[in-house]
């Protein structure tokens, strides 16, 4: 069954859209990430214009993260105070990201920046995660009791000026690294069409030492708020949010996420992190190859002016 996408100005199969939304939603439920880093490249590969894909996926990420954020909120797993700081600086970063998006698109270098951005970010985060997960698995095989990280281990970042107390995270740290993380993720997220959950979680854990019980919830709450703001920014600035496309992806995504979350209960934490790391690295390698391998077609075309 074909459905016409009024902003992308082409028609696509409804079941295909719900299907890829569901498949990516399953993975995002399994690993607790938004899934934008998989969905955006998939849509572009299926023929959706890149600006429409990036802008519409932001809407889908909001939906995919909402149910998770709500259930964490009911369990008290969100540090709202910390999330507020991250969201405010994130929205500021998103303004920069959306502006950079428009400039790069007109200069014809958007594809390059998206490829390099994905390669560097995913490669870096994927390597870190895989390394950490393998160590945890090896330790467990040897029977070593994995020591829980102490929440009050502070590093130099926390001693910067402007310290703020985050009660729920049991942290009394400088607000500067928090704002920089928010700004960076806001910028990168709106530029690449990703929620940034896979950057946010390691940043909260390793840099800010946020305790495990509030990391995922806070990250999800931040993703919901920031991606909601980014959707509106994209809608206002480039008018390339396709509500039909986003809705089809949302329906598949929210359903898939529930199955993914229940499947995730059968896997241990470090196994999950290891699998996610492999997935992230695979996407990074794919973007890396697209930079160095000769393209099938060295010529490409685009419409100037306007979103499409």
């Amino acid at each position, binding site marked *: 069954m074909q459905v016409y996408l*009024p*902003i992308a100005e082409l028609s696509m199969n409804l079941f295909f859209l719900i299907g890829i939304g569901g498949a990516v939603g399953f993975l995002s439920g399994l690993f607790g990430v938004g899934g934008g880093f998989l969905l955006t490249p998939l849509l572009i590969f299926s023929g959706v214009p890149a600006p429409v894909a990036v802008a519409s996926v932001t809407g889908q990420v909001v939906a995919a993260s*909402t149910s998770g954020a709500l259930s964490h909120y009911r369990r008290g797993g969100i540090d709202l105070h910390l999330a507020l700081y991250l969201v405010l600086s994130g929205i500021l970063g998103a303004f920069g990201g959306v502006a950079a998006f428009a400039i790069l698109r007109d200069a014809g270098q958007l594809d390059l920046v998206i490829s390099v951005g994905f390669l560097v970010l995913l490669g870096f985060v994927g390597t870190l995660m895989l390394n950490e997960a393998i160590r945890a698995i090896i330790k467990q095989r040897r029977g070593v009791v994995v020591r829980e990280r102490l929440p009050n281990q502070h590093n130099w970042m926390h001693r910067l000026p402007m310290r703020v107390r985050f009660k729920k995270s049991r942290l009394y740290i400088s607000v500067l690294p928090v704002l920089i993380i928010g700004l960076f993720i806001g910028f990168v997220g709106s530029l690449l069409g990703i929620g940034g959950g896979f950057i946010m979680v390691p940043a909260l854990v390793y840099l800010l030492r946020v305790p495990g019980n509030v990391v995922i919830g806070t990250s999800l709450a931040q993703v919901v708020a920031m991606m*909601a703001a980014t959707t509106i920014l994209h809608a206002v600035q480039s008018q390339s*949010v396709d509500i039909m496309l986003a809705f089809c992806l949302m329906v598949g995504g*929210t*359903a898939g996420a529930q199955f993914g979350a229940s499947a995730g209960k059968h896997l241990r934490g470090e196994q999950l992190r290891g699998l996610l790391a492999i997935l992230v690295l695979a996407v990074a390698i794919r973007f890396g190859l697209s930079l160095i391998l000769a*393209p099938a077609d060295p*010529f490409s*075309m685009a419409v100037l002016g306007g979103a499409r």
Partner: protein
Amino acid sequence: MKWWLALMLAVLLAGTARGERLVSQLSNDSVEITSSFDGERMNFFGTIMPDAGSEQQFVTGPFHVVVVVLGPTQNRVARQMTNNFGVWLNTDQVEFDNFPSYFQVLSSARLRDITDITTLTTEYILPEAHTLVANDAGWWKTAVFGRELVRLMTEQGLFGVNEGGVNFLSENFYSARLTLPSNAPPGPYLALTYVFKDGQVIARKSEGFAVRKIGFERFLAMSAVQQPLLYGLVCVVLALFTGWLGGVLFKR
């Protein structure tokens, strides 16, 4: 002076004794894009008749008919990737202003059998003719990038030449069929019909039709442009609601 008189005579003769006109019709003057839009089939009909006021009783062929369908124009850019120290980058680009977003040629025979290349180019019957415009990039780059742009548009199904797309049902009655693809951009379209005889254009006609979104699709596309803030807010509310509903429905 002699050749001048000969020319006058020829013109006078052509004006009085000979003359054909084209009576043609489109199957639909608007193509409506609805939620299940999956392309649309269009038919072009026409008959070649003696011109009004000419002394001819009937027309004599053989005739050839070329139908050119043009979509709304856009400013397009063609880009080329080159290898720089092992990395493939977009390094060169040529802009084509007012380039048609859709271009299909239907003809009753091979174009080069109908007329010569000069006529095809000056009448904008060949896709490449649209790339032969003055451009800052210089003629060589314009030609190279223009050919690539036409190839890319052809791969998207937006450009095409169908030699044999026009069928003559009798000596002077033709019909042609065109399937507009689902990615045909909305906007005003132009169907130009040329009648050729002995390599010369003897009659021509242009008809317009519109491809437009109607109903809900039109409403969505309009509100995305006219009320972008509200549209964005609705998207977010829809996303939050869908996410919440998903969580409620699947909670065990």
